[in-house]
């Protein structure tokens, strides 16, 4: 028995419309595409306004008048659309970029660099059993040679006998990228299956 819910019929229509592009570009897909862009942009505005109200306006209402500066900076962001005064948007953008960069690089040094090197250094290469030793060696060789692959400023590192090190690094990364590709296949199919389950269970109600 097919569903009688209007929202499910609309959702089914848009699911099929969005899928149709895989076969051929068509006007139904274009309609769905433009709908998606409009709705997505609207949702951003809605969440943006709620965010400004909850974390900015409430602070001003509590008496923190300094937040008026934030509101002025926020409005200046939209100066980028002005032909003459576009440069005003650089002030809030500078604040956002400085904040974002500062917040992320301070921890990246620790998480992406120090901890990873520590882990590589402290893992014993000789484990309790043969398989453990092989695994530890592969991990160590993979990590070290992959780093060597990214040293592009020293040309001599990629030549001669020493050139084998970054070459092995490239091979290790290709093996890893193959695994990533295999997982990506599963990921995309897993997502699309959810839509098929919706069509068959919630819309057509055949499962």
């Amino acid at each position: 028995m097919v569903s009688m819910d209007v929202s499910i019929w609309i959702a089914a229509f848009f699911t099929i419309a969005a899928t149709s592009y895989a076969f051929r570009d068509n006007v139904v897909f274009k309609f769905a595409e433009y709908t998606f862009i409009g709705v997505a942009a609207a949702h951003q505005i809605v969440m943006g306004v709620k965010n400004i109200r909850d974390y900015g306006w409430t602070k001003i209402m509590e008496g923190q008048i300094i937040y008026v500066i934030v509101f002025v900076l926020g409005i200046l962001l939209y100066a980028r659309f002005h032909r003459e005064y576009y440069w005003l948007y650089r002030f809030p953008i500078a604040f956002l970029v400085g904040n974002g960069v500062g917040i992320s690089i301070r921890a990246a040094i620790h998480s992406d660099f120090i901890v990873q090197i520590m882990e590589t250094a402290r893992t014993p290469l000789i484990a309790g059993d043969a398989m453990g030793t092989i695994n530890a060696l592969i991990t160590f060789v993979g990590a070290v040679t992959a780093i060597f692959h990214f040293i592009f400023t020293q040309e001599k590192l990629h030549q001669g006998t020493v050139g084998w090190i970054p070459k092995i690094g490239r091979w290790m990364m290709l093996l890893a990228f193959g695994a990533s590709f295999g997982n990506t296949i599963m990921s995309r199919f897993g997502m699309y299956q959810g839509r098929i389950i919706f069509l068959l269970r919630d819309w057509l109600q055949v499962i």
Partner: protein
Amino acid sequence: MDYKRDIPLAITFLVGIIAIGDYYTGIEAVTQTFNVIKNWGIVLQGFALGLGAVNLLRVHGKRISERRGGTDWYFSAWLLLMLAVHIILGLVTGRYEQGETYSWLYNAIYLPLGSTMYSSLAFYMAYGAYKVLRARNFDAALLFITAVLVIIGNTPMFPAIYPGFFHMREWIFGPIVSGAYRGVRIGIGIGAVVLGIKTLIGMETGYLGRR
């Protein structure tokens, strides 16, 4: 001094240094200042969310006013209508939680479109695997081998027949992926830090836009 560029660069440096100083120093004044910067940043991000919509308004508004591209402007009009309807419904209904109507529209329109657009790449992945994934040379063969072994391990039928396929998949994700991606992660970390420092000291100015 070009105040239109130099002052923003100075702001970037100052704000970034305070953020980094909060992490590495225990100075209370720095932490307090950074708390303020954090909270300001959250509000500013809220303002930044509207930029995309304003740009859409400009682009599609122009298309409608010029009636360009045959019937394309009908789609632009529909886009702006959807934009307006959803903004009004989202802001007017439901003070805090999303209003019932807005949630209804989300579940009927945005959710199916978002999930399907994102996931329909599955078709292209399958087509790409058919057309492009070839063991043409040694390098391609390496990628090919692990891709096939992982796909076999991820397909429930094969481990059901022989559990070794699943263990092979787990092993590939063990030393091979761990080792190589650790190197990649260190490379990413170094690159991110270098780019960040260059941004803070004003060597990277792409975010400032045109001169």
